[in-house]
């Protein structure tokens, strides 16, 4: 930070702290300025991502010329300020405040989750009085009480710092916890009948300075001194929040958010924070299996790989390359994606490869739009959210967008079919009927261009942009699986006409961006180049590429249903769970020939596979992933799985070897180096760079050199988890430090980034692109990166039956997906399946909330409970896509532009 600010010309002032004169940014809070120059002022309530409140009174200091003892956390530095943090008066206040904080604290450290890493313990040892003089009876509360399904509250341990309540209110926008009562009876409380059901509740546990808030999944699972940590990226969705992954006895037990400025600001969503438990489940497949006599039976790896290779060889011999297909690959690492792409396209020579399931956006669009960065939200001219409910699909991106809109004054406009988590922060919410967003987008674009739309909401949206300059950041996702992707593509094409429009493609599935970037899409080759543009280059490097563009997932499933796919590889793919058209997925899987499942669990989709190849999961393998803004960051192995699971990429390399191609790749880092050498968008992003890049690398690095912050390989800090954890830290070192020392030294070592000043643009390109990127063979030219021509098919507009409701089927956070279902902590968080209607439609149908209705589309029918919802527009019906048992897929015909429903009472 410091180096960044110094180099970007922030006004500096000179202050003296304990006799040391330092230069600090003007207006910075004293507590932070002091910390960055090695003086740790003790604190409990202050958190640098939240507004200061000055309530714990632990950070009182003496400032010359100022009466009394002002709190360092609310005092901005001023030139010439002389601060004393060590005087007798300050010391006496610190003793006093700590004694006060402890009088009602139960001191049950031996049985407290926080014991051993507790800021109250540490601060008491470092700054507090030796003993307490309190001999009265302490305050008693019932303890602990569950304030949500994931968080428990022990009010006796609470020191009322309001970090949790402020987080809930200021950061998450879920003000569901608050102070109740006053004086010594002040307690954190939820509102009656309204639990702290925030998607971000786990952050309150992380930032709690005592053990008052504990997380149900972690409670009593480990002691801090038994934990070791590595820095990694969470891959629950495509945001890739930086996180510290901790294990004890080879078992993952905890994930803590790391404060990455460009990505997550230290926060995690609960699904990411607690979802790792899935990998420990009993039904993980631990050994390879082949089908013998109709049963999948365990076998050795050579047997399984040989069987898989035989199946592929047979299919190629019978039906040629076009009879082989690969589905999936978005759940793995970049290395997995690349090696599988090379195997499928360079060895099997099939282009029937798709990491999506007809549930995303065409790769040509997703890869070819002008990209924005997440941090561009903060100073955007406006944010336009097209379709996606970020709170449900990419929760931490929701936090960033919410912050931009609510705290930084960036106008946010949403174009959606139903209300979303961001609706209350939007200057305008433009609702459209399913399939008609391109009209809304067109009207908005012309209103921004100066032609009034005559629609209040649209004109208000356009008006909010007036007087502002900069980029218009469009966040686009695939919100409604009951409408064709063309509808979204049409709207994207319109929005791309806005001057300085940059896109964040918020497809949810974890490494979908990396998979598409590395060629797991029809018509593309690794490095964001089209098959045509990259043909010569990759033929030279790989020896072969597919002769013609292949099928996308829906095409593959259709072909399979027609018995035209002789071999199907399911690379962590669950078409039954992810393809919008359940009937198509079922027919496709049934009609596919030889099926190879590469996965961690047996799912309905891969149950019938001929070979099952078990793979390592997140936390069990090293590699890199690419987030939705194109940032490549590392994921790290923390535990060794039971059994013999292999990384995905190694399986591809093994299969290639059996088809007489030696990839000669021994480690993930070797794969990274090959990617850097051959994949144009990854030019320069080799293993050496990735090891040193604190915040990862944004592709292509030549255009994003300022995002590259190179540092030492590791910087030792404490693992004190309640303060923002600086990225680039060596978390392993933390466990060794004494607790008191940890607090004292935290200040000195915190600005990990100061080691790594951003490198100048010239350096980045020369260092990164200079040596390695030159083609191995002086032959074909480096292909150009793909850009989208903006050509959008005209979505067809079917007429509407006055009695029909048009279906909106979107994803929710706690879902029926494989990982979520395998995480016990989420069991109670999954919402019941309900059909949500506008109250007027509900009344017209003649039912009440809670009644059962029968809904029927051209495809199928379901019986569901109905409920009115003010967020649902008249004429539409909302049914969550991915809840277990929702069955929305049985209603949807993937080839139809929209899905119309008849709803009738079956009371």
């Amino acid at each position, binding site marked *: 930070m410091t180096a960044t600010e110094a180099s970007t010309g922030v006004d500096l002032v000179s202050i003296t702290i304990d006799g040391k004169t330092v230069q600090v940014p003007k207006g910075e809070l004293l507590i932070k300025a002091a910390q960055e120059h090695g003086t740790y002022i003790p604190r409990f309530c202050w958190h640098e991502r939240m507004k200061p409140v000055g*309530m714990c009174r632990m950070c009182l200091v003496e400032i010359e010329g100022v009466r009394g003892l002002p709190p360092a956390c609310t005092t901005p530095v001023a030139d010439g300020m002389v601060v004393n943090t060590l005087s007798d008066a300050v010391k*006496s206040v610190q003793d006093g405040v700590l004694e006060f904080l402890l009088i009602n604290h139960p001191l049950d450290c031996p049985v407290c989750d926080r014991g051993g890493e507790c800021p109250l313990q540490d601060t008491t040892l470092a700054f507090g009085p030796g003993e307490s003089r309190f001999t009265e009876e302490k305050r008693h509360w019932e303890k602990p009480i569950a304030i949500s399904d994931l968080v428990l509250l022990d009010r006796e341990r609470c020191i009322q710092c309001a970090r949790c309540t402020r987080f809930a209110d200021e950061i998450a926008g879920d003000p569901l916890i608050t102070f109740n009562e006053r*004086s010594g009876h002040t307690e954190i409380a939820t509102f009656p009948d309204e639990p702290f059901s925030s998607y971000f509740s786990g952050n309150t546990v992380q930032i709690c300075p005592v053990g008052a808030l504990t997380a149900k999944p972690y409670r009593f699972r480990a002691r801090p001194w038994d934990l070791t940590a590595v820095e990694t990226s969470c891959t629950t969705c495509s945001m890739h929040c930086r996180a510290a992954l901790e294990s004890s006895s080879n078992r993952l037990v905890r994930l803590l958010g790391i404060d990455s400025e460009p990505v997550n600001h230290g926060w995690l969503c609960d699904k990411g924070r607690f979802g790792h438990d899935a990998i420990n489940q009993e039904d993980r497949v631990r050994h390879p299996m082949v089908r013998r006599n109709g049963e999948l039976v365990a076998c050795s790896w050579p047997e399984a790989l040989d069987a898989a290779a035989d199946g592929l060889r047979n299919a190629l011999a019978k039906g040629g390359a076009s009879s082989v297909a690969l589905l999936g690959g978005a759940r793995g690492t970049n290395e997995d994606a690349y090696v599988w792409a090379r195997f499928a396209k360079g060895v099997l020579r099939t282009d029937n490869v798709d990491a999506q399931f007809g549930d995303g956006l065409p790769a040509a669009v997703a890869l070819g739009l002008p990209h924005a960065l997440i941090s561009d939200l903060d100073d955007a001219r406006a944010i336009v959210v097209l379709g996606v409910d970020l709170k449900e699909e990419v929760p931490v991106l929701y936090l960033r967008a919410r912050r931009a809109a609510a705290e930084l004054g960036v106008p946010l406009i949403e174009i959606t079919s139903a209300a979303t988590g961001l609706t209350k922060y939007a200057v305008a919410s433009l609702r459209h009927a399913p399939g008609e967003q391109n009209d809304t987008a067109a009207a908005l674009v012309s209103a921004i261009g100066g032609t009034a739309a005559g629609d209040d909401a649209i004109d208000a949206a356009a008006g909010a942009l007036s007087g502002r300059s900069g980029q218009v950041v469009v966040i686009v996702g695939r919100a409604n699986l009951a409408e064709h992707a063309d509808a979204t593509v049409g709207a994207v094409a319109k929005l791309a006409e806005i001057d300085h429009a940059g896109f964040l493609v918020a497809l949810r599935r974890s490494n979908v961006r990396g998979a598409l970037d590395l060629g797991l899409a029809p018509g593309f080759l690794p490095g964001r180049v089209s098959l045509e543009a990259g043909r010569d280059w990759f033929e030279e490097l790989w020896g072969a590429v597919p002769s013609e563009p292949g099928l996308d997932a829906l095409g593959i499933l259709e072909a399979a249903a027609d018995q035209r796919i002789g071999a199907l590889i399911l690379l962590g793919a669950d078409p039954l769970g992810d393809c919008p058209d359940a009937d198509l997925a079922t027919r496709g899987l049934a009609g596919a020939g030889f099926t190879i499942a590469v996965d961690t669990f047996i799912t309905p989709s891969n149950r019938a596979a001929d070979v099952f190849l078990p793979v390592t999961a997140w936390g069990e393998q090293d590699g890199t992933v690419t987030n939705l803004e194109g940032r490549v960051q590392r994921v790290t192995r923390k535990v060794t799985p039971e059994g013999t699971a292999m990384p995905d990429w190694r399986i591809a390399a093994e299969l290639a070897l059996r088809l007489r191609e030696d990839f000669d790749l021994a480690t993930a880092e070797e794969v990274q180096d090959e990617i850097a050498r051959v994949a144009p968008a990854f030019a320069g992003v080799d293993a050496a760079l990735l090891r040193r890049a604190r915040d990862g690398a944004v592709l292509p690095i030549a255009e994003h050199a300022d995002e590259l912050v190179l540092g030492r390989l590791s910087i030792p800090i404490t693992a004190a988890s309640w303060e923002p954890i600086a990225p680039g830290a060596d978390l392993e070192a933390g466990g060794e430090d004494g607790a008191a020392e940890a607090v004292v030294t935290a200040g000195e070592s915190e600005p990990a980034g100061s080691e790594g000043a951003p490198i100048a643009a010239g350096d980045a390109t020369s260092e990164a692109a200079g040596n390695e990127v030159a083609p191995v063979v002086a032959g074909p030219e480096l292909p150009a990166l793909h850009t989208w021509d903006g050509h959008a098919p005209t979505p067809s507009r079917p007429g509407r039956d006055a009695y029909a409701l048009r279906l909106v089927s979107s994803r929710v956070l706690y879902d029926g997906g494989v990982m979520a279902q395998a995480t016990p902590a989420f069991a109670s968080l999954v919402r019941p399946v309900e059909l949500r209607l506008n109250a007027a439609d509900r009344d017209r149908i003649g039912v009440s909330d809670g009644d059962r209705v029968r809904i029927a589309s051209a495809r199928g029918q379901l019986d569901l409970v109905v409920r009115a919802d003010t967020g649902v527009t008249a004429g539409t019906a909302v049914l969550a896509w991915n809840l277990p048992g929702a069955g929305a897929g049985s209603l949807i015909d993937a080839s139809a532009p929209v899905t119309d429903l008849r709803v009738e009472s079956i009371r």
Partner: protein
Amino acid sequence: MTATETRLVTARLRERPEDSWTMDGALASGAYESLKQALGMAPESIGKEQVAASGLRGRGGAGFPAATKWSFLAPDSFPRYLVVNADEGEPSTFKDRMLIELDPHALVEGIAIAAFAVSCHLAFIYLRGEFALGYERLTDAIRDAKAKGFLGANIQGSGFDLEIVVHRGAGAYICGEESALIESLEGERGMPRIKPPFPAVAGLYAKPTVVNNVETLATLPHIIAMGGERYAELGVNKSTGTRIFSLSGHVKRPGNYEVELGITFRDLIFSPELGGGTPSGRPVKFFIPGGASSQWLTGSDEHLDAPLDMDFVQQTFGVMLGSGAVMVYDDTVNPALIAWRLAKFFAHESCGKCTPCREGAGWIEKVLYRISHGEGRPNDLDLLFSVGNSISPGVLNAPFTQTTICPLGPSAVSGVASLHKYFREEVIAMCSNGPRAIPVTAGAMQ
């Protein structure tokens, strides 16, 4: 100086005891004449000339010069708000309640004058929730004043507009602290704000805001009527004018008395027209000179003969006239019991925002309970004093500092500091009778 009442602010109450709170009664005794007069003046001149010359100081407790407070308003920043602190909750203070119930028109007139003087068009009265009668009479008065053109649009043809909103509090003492009051008015939990920014710069809804006490505002019509300079002739030194003192405890005639500042405590407590002395005829042992937040004075001649002069008592004895509540105790009273009862109030009313007050006030209360109920230990008073110092360092040597955000924390220490100053021997003697051992069961291990 005379030891009798000087009725200025409370004059109407005597003149029209049957209907002082009605529009008719008020008009019959000259209400709103000052407003008419003020509307003819240049707005700024009211503060800069009349109020400044009057030397009027805030009657809520802090005694800050009213004209100076108005002058701190961020210039050229509008809208700005006038907030009336009618959340009178200090134990034994009951003067504002009387004014609101018996002379609401004086308050309305004072608000209109102040609002005109600071160019504010929306005033809020934050009324203590328990004042049911006061609420009724105040809202009636506002309604009637509006009907008569003393409020609303274009008041008395002057072009000046003013609306008044009455908001009833929900029963928290802390909401008498101006920034907590503003928080509460905004719908937030009543907790003091960190200052700066001060309300004059960013107060209600982040706009420049003046917060004035009821009595302060009710005094304004009289300052306009008689002129600031003549008002300043009343009183003593920088404590000009009259003040209403709420007299309670061991006096024959408890009640509110408006007296000219500068008479002595002895006058106030013993004058036959005022307190009339102790009912028992026994000597005054100690008294609380300025509301429960203040440190105490004793029945010594030095203290009794001290003048009611805000600066004098502050500088000489480290006590304050505060809200003007004088509680008198004769020599039958156990001072530790009084200290406990007051501490209990502050411990109960601590808002819970900052640590020293939230935890410390409760601790003090628990120890004082033991002492006053025969369970004291010999070192308890020293312990209390030390705990008090963690809340207000240097509590014996005014001006002390505070480790809390607002003065509620130090208020909780006033009783402890007073025991320490005046009743040390008595309290220690009381403690030596109590059990010496700390009643914990840890000894069972041996």
